[in-house]
């Protein structure tokens, strides 16, 4: 018989995972909790009198109200853009469906701060519109600007979710409703919409978390949301304890958002039926309604793609900056890549054992470890970055202002992203193959290189690419953690735009857009396979 300690381990694990899988997984899970710990540590450094004053400030309520207002605005606007578009490409006879789908995903290549750049460059006395047509549009900024910039960038997430659900929807449900004599309209609201709820919720969750955590667009639009306040608190006022408290409040907000979604979704899932093998619904005839549909799509695509393309083209070709600004781009690009690539490798390196643990040794502990990777993803980036600053200052000063800290933090933020492709390719590889290899006398190392790795190669590469692309356009974490003088493409766009140097920012913004198109290409590729 085994000792009681060993049998206790078996009891929790069911099966024993080898230490070379277990140790990196546990390390990663601990690293996820680390920033939270330092955030609390810093926040509670204030004495009690100060604490009460910090927490009960009227400004906190204002920030909360502003952030909620922003999130709600973006969710409403993105739904108004994504829902009809998804319906048009899946349920109607509208032509060029493939093209519309591509166009609805392309805005992902224009990060929020580049979208803000485009919107800011449009209006006002020196705006592109005034320069080109001699007609001065009002400057788009503040609340309107922030909502527009974030919506135009994020609506593709919702579109993709909704499109997948529309495509997978079993038409027999609709057909039975039709047989009871319900109109198309009634079917949409009574049958389709309730079944869309999980997809809507999932899309809203991604967008909501992004909006709460976004810093670039909000800061450029000078809209007083939590993240902007954290940034000004940290960078100019240097009141770090208050910055920590604001971060905690933002964290609580994001956390309650996640919790709310989970609760709602749990009940929804119980109510929905198994998908089975769904037959696609015959397309509804648009007829004359095709015209307003195309007008609607034109407005969406002109603002989400046309606008940034127009503004960037203006500053690049009609009113270009000095040539030396163009020549700075390759160097900056390489500098961004020199940190993004190691981060991608680290994230994929940790994702591999965790995914393996989750797929091959399912247990409550492996699920808990996997869930913990979402902490880094769901944490508002500024909160995460600030926590890492506190960590470096308090415990690991040698890391402060180093690339290593930036790389480590990027890896924490993207571990959940890196898990996706690796986990799904691992799920497609049966455990049998590894067992066969073991029974033929091969040890774990030989089995990994001969049997597992060849099957996972594509998944691992996809993980590395996703994280790399994410880091290349990442702004808030870079902004707080990059060593002095280490400027990336994103930081350059941000700082020049905030100083009104639109022309000088243009080459860098264009580089980001072109490069991000790669990630959009990957998304489209994956969608095409579905």
């Amino acid at each position, binding site marked *: *018989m085994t000792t009681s300690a060993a049998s206790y381990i*078996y*009891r929790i694990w*069911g*099966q*024993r995972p080898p230490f070379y899988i277990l140790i990196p997984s546990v390390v990663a899970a601990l690293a996820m909790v680390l920033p939270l710990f330092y955030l609390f540590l810093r926040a509670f450094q204030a004495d009690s009198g100060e604490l009460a004053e910090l927490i009960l400030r009227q400004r906190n309520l204002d920030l909360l109200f502003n952030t909620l207002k922003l999130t709600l605005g973006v969710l409403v606007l993105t739904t108004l853009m994504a829902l009809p578009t998804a319906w048009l490409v899946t349920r109607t006879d509208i032509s060029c469906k493939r093209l519309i789908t591509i166009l609805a995903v392309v805005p992902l290549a224009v990060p929020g701060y580049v979208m803000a750049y485009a919107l800011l460059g449009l209006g006002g006395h020196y705006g592109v519109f005034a320069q080109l047509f001699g007609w001065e549009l009002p400057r788009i900024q503040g609340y309107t600007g922030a909502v527009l910039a974030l919506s135009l960038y994020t609506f593709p997430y919702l579109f993709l979710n909704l499109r997948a659900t529309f495509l997978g929807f079993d038409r027999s449900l609709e057909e039975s409703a039709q047989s009871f004599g319900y109109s198309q309209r009634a079917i949409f609201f009574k049958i389709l919409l309730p079944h869309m709820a999980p997809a809507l919720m999932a899309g809203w969750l991604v967008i909501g978390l992004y909006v709460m955590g976004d810093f670039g667009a909000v800061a450029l639009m000078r809209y007083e949301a939590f993240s902007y306040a954290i940034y000004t608190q940290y960078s100019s006022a240097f009141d770090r304890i208050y910055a920590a408290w604001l971060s905690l409040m933002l964290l609580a907000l994001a956390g309650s958002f996640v919790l709310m979604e989970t609760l709602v979704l749990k009940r929804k899932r119980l109510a929905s039926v198994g998908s089975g093998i769904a037959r696609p619904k015959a397309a509804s005839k648009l007829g004359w309604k095709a015209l307003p549909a195309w007008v609607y799509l034109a407005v969406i695509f002109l603002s989400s793609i046309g606008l940034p393309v127009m503004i960037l083209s203006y500053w690049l070709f009609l009113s270009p900056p000095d040539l030396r600004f163009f020549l700075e781009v390759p160097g900056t690009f390489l500098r961004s890549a020199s940190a993004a690539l190691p981060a991608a490798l680290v994230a994929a390196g940790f994702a591999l054992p965790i995914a393996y643990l989750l797929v091959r040794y399912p247990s409550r502990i492996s699920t808990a470890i996997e869930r913990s990777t979402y902490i880094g993803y769901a944490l508002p980036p500024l909160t995460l970055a600030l926590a890492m600053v506190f960590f470096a200052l308090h415990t690991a000063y040698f890391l402060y202002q180093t690339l290593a800290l930036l790389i480590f933090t990027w890896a924490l933020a993207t571990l959940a992203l890196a898990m996706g492709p690796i986990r799904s390719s691992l799920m497609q590889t*049966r455990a*049998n*193959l590894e*067992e*066969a*290899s*073991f*029974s*033929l*006398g*091969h*040890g774990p190392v030989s089995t990994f290189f*001969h*049997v597992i790795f*060849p*099957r996972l190669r594509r998944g691992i590469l996809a993980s590395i690419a996703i994280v790399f692309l994410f880091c290349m356009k990442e702004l808030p974490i870079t902004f707080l953690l990059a060593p002095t003088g280490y400027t990336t493409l994103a930081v350059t766009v941000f700082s020049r735009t905030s100083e009104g140097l639109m022309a000088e920012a243009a080459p860098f913004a264009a580089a980001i857009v072109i490069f991000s198109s790669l990630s959009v290409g990957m998304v489209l590729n994956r969608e095409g396979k579905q």
Partner: protein
Amino acid sequence: MNSMHKVAADQQALMAVEGLSKRYQEGNDLAVEQVSFQLYTGEILALLGPSGCGKTTTLRMLAGFEHPTAGQIYLHRRDVTELPPQKRNIGIVFQDYALFPHMSLLRNVTFAMRHLPKSQQQDKAMQWLELVGLTDYAKRYPHELSGGQQQRVALARTLAAEPELVLLDEPFSNLDAALRESTRKEMRSLFKEAGTSVILVTHDQAEAMTFADKVGVMQKGRLIQMDTPQQVYQHPANAFVAKFLGHTNLLPGRALGGFAETPLGNINLHTASEGDVQLSLRPEDLELTASDNPQAARVVDREFRGHDYLYVLEQDGVQYCAITPSHNYFEVGSHVTLASARQASVLPSAGL
């Protein structure tokens, strides 16, 4: 079995399993409970049972993929319970073959030949492929092969590692019926010629009885009976084994030494017994004779199976089954008398 005998047997046994148990999760029932048996070199053992009886779990513990909750596994009297699978030298052929999809057949086979120097691997692998008749396909990839061919590659790959013992996990279940029988025959003669020791897991009683030298019947995690196919079939240890190995008639009776009084009259017993007993009588051991007596058994149903008929008969509200050669037939609704042509086996009372 006295203890002297047991020690002597242990010394010859290739594999000995003692008190093997497995519990997957605390609070769950044991998936495998106190399984003990021995396997001798060159023997083919079939573990037979319905799905969920623990036979596959047992096999996976022997291979080293599952860690037993209790019990020991000995290979050549060496305790291998704690050894990882790659150190056991036990080969396994999976139900779905588990061929490496990114390797050619030849590479799949050479992958198993770690014990040989690289220079010899190719030639030797070709010999293994020749054994299963697939040399022409050496450069092909698994997905280009039919199910039967894949299975033969899996077997060649397992044999190429030259294991002490080969485990087969439902090896014929993915083959269609026509192929199954011939593959079974080929594989059995191949194992017998090479003197390979084999443990096979199956839920198909016909497969177990035709393929194996010994059949171990499992029920709810326990090994109920292990013996030659003939013995297990004719003298099942309990009602479950009797029913699992084919159609049977379970009769209550009152034993009076060498015979018992039953609803079908007096029936001779295989082993003398006294008191209330349960008897198992195979359908082919029942003799049917046409009868005019309306009190005799009535033919309720008749199923033509080519070489024979399977009858369902009813007498005094109880149903019986009988198998007769196909030249010998009775109409549904007609009456027949039932008589036992063979000694019935007495089921131990634990099986009631």
